[in-house]
């Protein structure tokens, strides 16, 4: 049952990622990205990380996807990838590069820390444990994050402001 859910979600994730790479129109890519992010939220659910699943839907599939669609509609870059590609030969080099990367990750997966059963099949306590960690051990990074978001807001306002 859980394996079935995982397989369905994995197919969705990989398929939508392929769609994002292959589709020429960026708005189609953005919609594939939404499917991708929502399926990753489903993966979090199967990993029993409920807080992350909701945060993923709200932050990624909500805010970030809307931002992307908005930027695409403002910029209307529609036809810009239909022109001749001066670096076509170089782009094909990406395929062997990614192949080598996949091979290396497969080797690491076969060799390293994932062999055998884990330490214990105990549920780490879900959202309560996350909140406790966030506001005790990770309190300082949490506050730094709020400062980072503030800096991002100010930076975006400065960048996007038209020069009068």
């Amino acid at each position, binding site marked *: 049952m*859980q394996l079935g859910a*995982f397989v369905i979600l994995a197919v969705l*994730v*990989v398929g939508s*990622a*392929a769609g*994002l*790479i292959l589709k020429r129109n*960026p708005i189609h*890519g*953005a919609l594939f*990205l939404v499917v*991708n*992010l929502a399926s990753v939220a489903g*993966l*979090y659910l199967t*990993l*029993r*990380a409920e*807080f*992350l699943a909701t945060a993923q839907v709200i932050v*990624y599939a909500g*805010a*970030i996807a809307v*931002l*992307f669609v908005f*930027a695409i509609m*403002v*910029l209307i*870059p529609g036809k*810009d*990838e239909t022109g001749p*590609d001066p670096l076509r030969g170089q*782009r094909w080099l*990406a*395929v062997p*590069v*990614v192949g080598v*990367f996949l091979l290396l*990750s*497969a080797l690491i*997966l076969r060799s390293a820390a*994932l062999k055998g059963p*884990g*330490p*214990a*099949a*105990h549920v*780490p*306590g879900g959202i309560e*444990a*996350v909140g406790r*960690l966030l506001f005790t051990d*990770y309190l300082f*990074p949490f506050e730094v994050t709020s400062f*980072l*978001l503030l800096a991002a807001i100010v930076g*975006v306002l400065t*960048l*996007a402001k038209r020069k009068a």
Partner: protein
Amino acid sequence: MVPESYYVALSAVLFSMGVLGVLVRRNPLVIFMSIEMMLNAANVALVAFGQRYNTAEGQVLVFFVMCVAAAEVAVGLAIIVVIFRLRRRLSVDELSLMRW
């Protein structure tokens, strides 16, 4: 229960597809989306390892990654909008001003 190695393998595949998107595509918006996909792949691996070692710290790390990703997307899209305003075209091959 699905073994964690499946999740890590899926994360590796998703990350590789993100790398492929960054290397192959020319539209900076699509490159940005591929970067988001790579961040998501890393998040999946973090959560899977956290489950395996029976701790919630992986989820806390993913929370921070999400915050940084949100900030990064906002700033990056603003930069792309400014570039488009200056050049009226969007292609990473033309953005060679800072190339040595």
